[in-house]
């Protein structure tokens, strides 16, 4: 396997890891970035997405099964997010630290619920046959490089979801309401925007995207009660580094982190590269507390 093939392989890995990070963080960019709700149960929404995908794949066989699973995991997690918003989060607006602790409680309950329903042992989501296998380049300068279909699919899914979200925010009425509430909740209310509905729908959309991500990740990772824990800390850091309220910033941050970890891992072990990454992010926040891309405006509340 030529040197160039290894390099391109690692570049692809970096983009793939970046896309996974972005997919897990997109829902958070909505709920945390734009609505300032700290949802520590975000990881568990991914888990729910995984379990819903598992259930759909059991009942619906054939190639369409997985696409249906993606849809159902989005809807399932969105409904769960809506219920969570109405029961817990709605009473804690304006108290970010308390929301953080309350949603951490929710994450523990969801984990235990999954363990009681599906057992401590994880469940298996089998990739549909049109996704298993890989593109193998076996001649020319990139000989030996293989690009798994699954990772390509996840990258494409991330790009599509990202584009849809951008369109939703930039072009639709609800996107306008969302931006208004994000900039100045009182002013938006004064202009007749029903902020209660905006909070509910946008939060549900955020958890829905997390469910979708959970289903996609079930292709290359386990679906167990505690899988959410391995994503939630990194998802938050990606949103912070990207800059609150900026989807583009989140995407950039996810890509940078993906490339960083795949390059560093060529030289050090995975554990050390994780430690370097965490420390680097903590130092980065000191010098750009607002993140890579942030709006300059007087009214921005200090996060």
């Amino acid at each position, binding site marked *: 396997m030529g040197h160039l093939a290894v390099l391109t392989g690692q570049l692809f890995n970096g983009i793939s890891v970046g896309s996974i990070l972005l997919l897990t963080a997109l829902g958070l960019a909505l709920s945390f970035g734009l609505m300032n709700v700290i949802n520590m149960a975000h990881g568990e929404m991914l888990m729910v997405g995984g379990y819903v995908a598992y259930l759909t794949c059991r009942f619906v066989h054939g190639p369409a099964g997985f696409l249906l699973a993606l849809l159902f995991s989005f809807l399932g997690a969105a409904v769960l997010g809506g219920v969570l918003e109405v029961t817990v989060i709605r009473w804690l607006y304006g108290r*970010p630290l308390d929301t953080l*602790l*309350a949603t951490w409680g929710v994450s523990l309950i969801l984990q235990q619920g999954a363990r009681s329903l599906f057992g401590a042992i994880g469940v298996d989501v089998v990739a549909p046959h049109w996704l298993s296998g890989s593109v193998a380049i076996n001649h020319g300068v990139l000989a030996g490089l293989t690009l798994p279909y699954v990772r390509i699919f996840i990258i494409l899914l991330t790009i599509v979801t990202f584009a849809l979200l951008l369109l939703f925010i930039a072009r639709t009425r609800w996107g306008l309401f969302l931006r208004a509430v994000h900039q100045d909740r009182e002013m938006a209310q004064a202009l007749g925007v029903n902020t209660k509905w905006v909070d509910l729908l946008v939060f549900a959309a955020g958890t829905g995207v997390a469910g979708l991500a959970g289903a996609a990740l079930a292709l290359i990772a386990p679906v167990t009660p505690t899988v959410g824990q391995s994503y939630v800390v990194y998802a938050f850091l990606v949103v912070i580094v990207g800059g609150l309220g900026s989807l583009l910033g989140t995407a950039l941050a996810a890509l940078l982190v993906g490339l960083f970890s795949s390059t560093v891992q060529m030289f050090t072990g995975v554990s050390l590269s994780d*430690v370097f990454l965490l420390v680097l992010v903590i130092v980065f*926040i*000191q010098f750009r507390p607002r993140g890579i891309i942030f709006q300059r405006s007087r009214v921005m509340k200090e996060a």
Partner: protein
Amino acid sequence: MKKWLRPALDLALLAALVAAPLYLSAYHLSLLGRFLAMAILSLGLCLVWGWSGVLSLGQGVFWGLGAYVLVMHLKLVGLQPGDMPDFMLWSGLDHTPGWWTLFRHPAVALAGVLIVPTVAAAGLAWLVFNRRVGGIYFALITQALALAFATLLISEQAYTGGFNGLTDFTTVLGHYIVDPSFQRALYWITVGALAAAFLFCRWMGKTNFGKVLLAIRDGESRIRFLGYNPAGYKTIAFAIGGAFAGISGALYVLHVGVISPAMVGVMPSIEMVVAVAVGGRSSFTGVILGTLLVNFGKDWISSAMPEMWQLSIGLLFILVVTLLPKGLAGIPELGRQITERIRRRTARRGVEPEVLAITQKN
């Protein structure tokens, strides 16, 4: 609150702790001892979160630093000269590293337990608070730090014992950890340390420093316009929190006999926060009681209904944060609100006709 009631309660709590060896079995006494050690950390967290409004999700890091420094000393003391801790042997080291042997001397170790966590906490706080990083970011940063610390401890197995942690230390300052007289002495030391920490906090509450902390919690920008630099105050408060956590870790590890990365990661750090939240974030007595309640609850529930523990701590979190932001101290207030609502509803049904009549007349 009648003047004498609060001190009377504190004395009652102290009396209950002093009398504990009489009415508690050996097992439950050692449990109480380790939970009292945790209460010292809770007092520190109460100062940091309840008083200055800074939520730290990474107290496990400073708690772990205190514990690891002490246990490094205990491992070295337990060795015959020239020998090496067992885990270093089978991790491929050929000699004990210099920065380990530094802690062989008891005085250095004790100083380490006090200084290392404090300096680490002060360093992080000064770096972060000077850049005016907001409360939410700080909470998430400390959580990331807890994850990084645990991952580092696990991966640098040759120096830290890795995932197994450090254990199997037998003597402290010449006394055998095993014999009951040491256990009893350890209990008294823990109660003494907790009392000292409690009095320190009480004193802090009366100083101008304490008042400024409260002001920072309720409106950091206002205090800045009175000429106070919140960063300095928050850094000192966080350093005190770090010191308390280090002491708590060292005492806890003497009770338990083992320190491992699983005890310092993200999850334990959040459980430390829930103990303070239950106790009523800014009340020192409440925080101690909250810690005892949560930890004894954990021990009792996890043996009676293993499945239920995670469910109950999750529910506890939600209920305390939404209904009882003041924790235990908030229960009477919550009671009053509920009775108020009931009274108002019954009153309206009874009085309504006359009131309407009067208002329509004039």
